[in-house]
């Protein structure tokens, strides 16, 4: 794979290489954060010095279906020893799926000194770099966060309804079977937790992992991403785009690619996603 700087990204600095991370594992101004689907994975071994942020227990409100508020974010930052000036670098399993999700939540609180380690756990492992089982402890910090701001990167139900009615662009990043609604009909298959299968009318189907080189988990080049999203699926980067999946996790990965790698400026993640849309009474669905 070519170097990150040579791939034509609009904001290449949002990705850092495994070499860069390896050179900064002891940097007090850098906090490396692992986020995975499998919450056991971190404890089996992680990048030396990395802390664990679990999307379920750390980033979600434990009562309402929502993300943590300012106080929760400040407490999390204190726990992992991060100040507003700390550079945070996310990585994880599943081609950085959950790393991008955590990255996205951090953006709701305006922590812009944030990057993703290209290739995630897969690349680090393939390069034979070491894992550590030591759980690091950093001195707690006092972090003053702004109130969570959903307007820039997130879109909620009522606005999604208006956006759909106005013919806005959606990208459905789930599997083709989920998009088609056929998965709902498979016997013995747990469904999406939704009453109806299908997709938001007009949504383009671009499964999230197509943005990735499967061999090492790195992101595809800007030219390849443009071919995928623009040439093949007709997305217009100058207009608003809403990405969604099942609960907004896979779509945060696509949000990252569209926003930072292609430089689309109006991409929002609909985290209500199919578990909300597929259960809403009276909304239009296409199969």
């Amino acid at each position, binding site marked *: 794979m070519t170097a990150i700087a040579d791939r034509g990204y609009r904001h290449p600095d949002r990705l850092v290489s495994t070499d860069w991370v390896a050179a900064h594992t002891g940097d007090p101004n850098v906090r490396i954060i692992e986020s*995975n*689907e*499998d*919450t*056991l*994975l971190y*404890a*089996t071994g992680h990048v030396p010095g990395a802390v664990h942020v679990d*999307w*379920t*227990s750390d980033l979600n409100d434990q009562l309402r279906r929502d993300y943590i508020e300012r106080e929760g974010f400040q407490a999390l930052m204190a726990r992992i020893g991060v100040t507003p000036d700390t550079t945070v670098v996310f990585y994880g*399993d*599943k081609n950085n799926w959950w790393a991008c999700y955590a990255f996205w939540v951090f953006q709701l609180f305006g922590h812009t000194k944030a990057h993703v380690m290209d290739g995630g*756990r897969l690349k680090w492992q393939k390069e034979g770099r070491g894992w550590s089982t030591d759980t690091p402890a950093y001195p707690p910090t006092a972090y003053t966060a702004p109130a969570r701001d959903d307007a820039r990167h997130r879109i909620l139900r009522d606005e999604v309804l208006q956006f759909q009615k106005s013919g806005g662009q959606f990208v459905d990043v789930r599997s083709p079977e989920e998009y088609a609604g056929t998965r709902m009909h*498979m016997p*013995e*298959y*747990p469904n999406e*937790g939704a009453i109806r299968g299908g997709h938001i009318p007009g949504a383009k189907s671009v499964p999230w992992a197509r943005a990735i080189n499967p061999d090492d988990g790195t992101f595809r080049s800007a030219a390849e991403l443009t071919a995928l999203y623009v040439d093949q699926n007709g997305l217009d980067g100058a207009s608003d785009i809403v990405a969604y999946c*099942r*609960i907004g996790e896979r779509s945060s990965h696509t949000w990252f690619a569209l926003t930072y790698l292609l430089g689309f400026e109006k991409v929002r993640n609909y985290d209500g996603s199919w578990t909300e849309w597929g259960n809403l009474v009276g909304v239009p669905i296409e199969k």
Partner: protein
Amino acid sequence: MPAYPERLQALLDVFAGVTDTHERTQLLIDFARRFKEVPPDVATRPFDETHLVKHCESEAYAWAVPNPDGTLKLHFAVENPSGVSAKALAAILDKALSGLPAADIATVDPEIVEKLFRQNISMGKGMGLMSMVLMVQALAKRHL
């Protein structure tokens, strides 16, 4: 409250006594480390798709092979090298259920996943792990 086979209940009791998140994580990882893949005399790659556990993102497979005494021996494969939870559950199911009659294994329900993993679980992963239990249950029923 379902009546679980004795060995499984004993394991569930151990897990019930572990309230510390870190300790529970370590206990589950210990099981994952003890995971043994299905031997070649039972199945080889490419594995038969009918043994694939549906909705398990770690691409897990399960088999139930009759022992000479009529009990069953459970085998698993987990294709995702990072599928620690799937490996842990496979090792637990093997330890707790292998060597039991099919009728006993068929009583096991997916509720045990929550009892074992508690906070170490997410919605998507939980469904995959529960599907592993359902698969074992279905395999056992074929031998009733």
